[in-house]
């Protein structure tokens, strides 16, 4: 499979307003394959938007290489095949969604006939068919985001950049936009999506990278990062003494108000712990394979944990 995005040693240095400099992106290496949904995570100010802007040619890197669909970032021909939804997009406020999409379609040099079909079907697809002729000034944040997604799909792109597409949306808009991204995945498009909504990324992305202060802190397949060989045992009515003994033999455990949660990989230890719990009249709540959440992985990574 071909490489959609290739980033090598990418650095972007800004002059900080208080004097001195700031590496918003710091020696970043990263590859995204075609057909991947790539989740680009990181706390506020980590450098996600800066990286995306470099990939789009909106700003130029201080050093390093950024290739998009085999061409240097910002190549005008490549731009026909990619699209971008900025963070909290804002559009010309006196325009209606239909006018806006017509305008963007003209920038993509889509012919008149084709334009009408695409605009109509996209308005339908993002759920703006009814509001299509109202000025964007009267749109809610969710509706603006829908318009933003529609403009990003106008050129039927091979590669889509989405910067925090689900931040600050109501649950319906949120679900709709997640579904649109899943559609893209089904169509085999490449999607580079930055986000804070870790639950969404967990659901839609194949692979994630976590950026901290401009540096790559972790990268891998979502499945591999989140599955472990441990079993999670939860029991209620556990006293301190028993919990203490269990803590000694578990890989990880915690006790909150009589509820014990223990993580154990070794099968013999698992059996042992369950027997101890039953013998001490604790009530078992659940025994499950342990699955980490992206949320936990993220917090651990950003805090400099494992």
């Amino acid at each position, binding site marked *: 499979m071909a490489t959609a995005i290739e980033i090598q040693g990418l650095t972007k240095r800004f002059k900080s307003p208080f004097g001195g400099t700031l590496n918003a992106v710091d020696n970043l290496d990263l590859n995204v394959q075609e057909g991947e949904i790539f989740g680009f995570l990181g706390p506020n100010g980590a450098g996600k938007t800066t990286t995306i*802007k470099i990939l*789009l*040619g*909106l*700003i*130029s890197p201080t050093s390093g290489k950024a290739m998009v669909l085999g061409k240097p970032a910002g190549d*005008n*021909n490549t*731009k*026909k095949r*990619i*699209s*971008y*939804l*900025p963070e*909290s*997009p*804002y*559009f*010309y406020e*006196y*325009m209606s969604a239909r006018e806006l999409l017509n*305008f*963007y379609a*003209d*920038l*993509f*040099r889509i012919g008149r006939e084709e334009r009408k079909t695409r605009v109509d079907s996209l308005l339908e697809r993002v759920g703006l068919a009814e509001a299509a002729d109202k000025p964007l000034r009267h749109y809610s944040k969710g509706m603006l985001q829908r318009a*933003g997604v529609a*403009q990003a799909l106008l*050129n039927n792109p091979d590669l889509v*950049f989405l910067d925090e597409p689900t931040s600050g949306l109501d649950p319906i808009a949120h679900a709709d936009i997640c579904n649109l991204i899943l559609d893209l995945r089904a169509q085999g498009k490449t999607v580079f999506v930055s986000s804070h909504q870790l639950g969404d990324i967990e659901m839609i992305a194949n692979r994630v990278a976590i950026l901290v202060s401009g540096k790559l802190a972790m990268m891998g397949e979502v499945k591999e990062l989140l599955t472990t060989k441990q079993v999670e045992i939860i029991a209620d009515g556990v006293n301190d003494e028993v919990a203490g003994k269990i803590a000694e033999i578990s890989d990880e455990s915690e006790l909150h108000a009589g509820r014990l949660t223990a993580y154990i990989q070794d099968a013999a230890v698992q059996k042992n712990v369950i027997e101890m719990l039953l013998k001490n009249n604790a009530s078992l709540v659940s025994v499950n394979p342990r699955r980490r959440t992206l949320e936990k992985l993220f917090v651990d990574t950003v805090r400099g944990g494992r």
Partner: protein
Amino acid sequence: MVIWTIAKTTYREAMRKKILQVFLIVALAMIVLALSFTQFGFQRDMTIVKSLGLTIILVSGLIISLTIGITLIPNEVDRRTIYTILSKPVKRYEFVIGKFLGGLLTLSVNIWLMGIVFIVMLAIKAALIGEVSTGPAGFVGDVRPETYKVQIFDPSMLLGILMIYFQFFLLSAVVMCFSVFMTPTVNFFASFAVYLVGSAAPIWASLAADKEKTGLLVRGFYKVIHTIIPNFDYFNISNRLIHPHHEVRSLPLFVSESIAYALVYVCLLLIIASIVFDSREV
């Protein structure tokens, strides 16, 4: 064409702004009011009305070209609308020229709307009066006819508006060029200063030529100002007609030279703006 798409959208968005609509209505009302001026008898009234009308159009043109121009590009950056445009197959120079033409279209429609209303109102006023008497004879032997027909259409008004139009065409390009590296407020004052200094071009020229009173360095300075700053005085047609010390030349030649001057200058300024904007971070 992408440039035209951007220009059209810029124009439509600008014209829908309430502030511009209100401003235009006020300017039109002032023009109509100016026409009702009667004080000193028809002949002098008409002269005052005409210069009042042209002044209103001039000042409006100045305000519109400054206020529209200073925000054309900075607003796109602030509101991040520029990201969705420049991430599409749009070259930077296409964006700059498209925005410029959109602003120019807005300015043109406003100036010509005021101009046409002014000329039509003048014609109506003239037609209503029909003919006037020249008044009592000024001195013995005054042999003017008792009455004469009022001129309904005065071509010099059209020419006056055309020259106003071209100076703001030029000023718009100055504003656009500044806007790729200045904040709107700084741009407003800088462009206004260029307009004032450029309108005073004959002063710089005569200062630069004055070998007796000023030293070489100072004269060089005036020379530089005179050369770099666009000469807005080229468009000041009433000055030429009033002051006889200007070279007497044919009017069509003068007008076409001024327009050619504006075109060349605008092209230069747009090239500079495009080059600067091309390497700018947005």
